């Protein structure tokens, strides 16, 4: 129960953020609807690794036994905000190797699982819940230009 409540509260406050700030996802203005869609998609596809509250796996800076890195938080305490939307999109659709060629990780590629417009919706939800300072940091990245077509 409390869980649902807190999610509803998060959705409310992030919707408020979308309305009051110029939050964009992949260059497009973000709508409260999109954030809600993103939240549902996140819950369905991402929580198992990145956490119910986007807190990441425990001890996420230390490698697993396999040598791979755990899933980092996406609540603004990790390093997701240091990646441009284009990179976040590419990592979600194709896996981390799309941005760092040859990189081995447990992050699955969601190509074929999520439709292209669903990814910016998830990113919009994540970004809407980052602290203001992290949102601004990410918006100022040199690579924050809209994706070319395709």
């Amino acid at each position, binding site marked *: 129960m409390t869980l649902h409540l807190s999610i509803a509260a998060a959705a409310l406050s992030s919707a408020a953020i979308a309305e009051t700030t110029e939050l964009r996802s992949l260059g497009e203005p973000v709508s409260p609807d999109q954030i809600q869609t993103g939240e549902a998609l996140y819950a369905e596809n991402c929580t198992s690794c990145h956490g119910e509250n986007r807190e990441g796996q425990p001890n996420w*800076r230390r*490698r697993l036994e396999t040598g*791979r890195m755990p899933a980092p938080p996406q609540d603004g305490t990790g390093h997701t905000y*240091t990646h441009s939307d284009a990179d976040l999109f590419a990592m979600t659709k*194709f896996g981390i190797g799309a941005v760092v*060629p040859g*990189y081995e*990780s447990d992050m699955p590629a969601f190509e074929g699982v999520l439709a292209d417009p669903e990814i910016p919706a998830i990113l919009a939800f994540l970004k809407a819940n980052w602290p203001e300072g992290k949102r601004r940091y990410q918006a100022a990245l040199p690579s924050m230009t809209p994706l070319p077509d395709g």
Partner: protein
Amino acid sequence: MTISMTDGISRRTFLGAATGAWIVGSARPLFATTTLRTGALAFAGGTVHAAGYSLLRSEDGGATWRESIGPDRRLTALTVHPERPDRVIAALEGGGLAVSEYGGESWRKAGTGLPGATIDALATAAQQADTLYAAIAGDGLWRSEDAGESWEFVMDRPFLAEAERDVLSLAAVDLASGMGGIWLYAGTTAGLQRLPDCFCRWQDVQPGNALDALIEGGEAPEMAPLPAGEPVEEPVRALVSPAVAPGALYAALSSGIWTTTDAGVVWRKVNTLDAIALAVDPSDPLALVAATENGLTYSRDGGET
């Protein structure tokens, strides 16, 4: 035979009375001193620091040296404040740090929060002199944002050729990572890695922006990487980058000193010097000091002679 970095250093005699020498290029020895057994070199402004059982300091390109008695243990790594040549941060064999504000005349212990294992490499952030990085054997990378007083764990060790690898050498390279910061370059027991200072992930040096290449189907330029441990393991014992030319790096391997001018895409072997430690003048990319088993060499042409 491969010996680990730490063993390699401790078995070498550095600036020993018999063999010790301060050499300009390959010229005759100019300087000899008592046994120092160096672990590290650093350039602060025009001052060269050489650390081992004590700290030696030269302000005239090695013509004369002042020796100060170090803390009670051998020094394994050094970093210096870019604008305050008297501020020296040194790693102590067995673990921990000591800081001197007076070029080694007196020391205070630092390093709250660090595990008690030897620090193999220390580096100062390129634009933030109070931000330091320490690579700890068997552990990972730590960061201090208060000039070495307190530390936090920021990144596990790189995973290369099926194993976690110790970082033996570390250089903050003032080139944009595209992630709002710059790159840290690390020499490991099995080749070179780099890491954006967001500590997102260890990676190989990539020519250009990988994502652009993916989207545009562009082809990557030819690479000539540093030897990465195959067929013989060649630990990257030292790695330095001059502040005025961040695309330039020197690396010390058992096969010799290697250099790059394009941030690590193409590497070239400059000489076959078996160097243990390196330092480059922050304002002169060609002024390179190297410590070998036999002493120190000073090159004015990037290690060519």
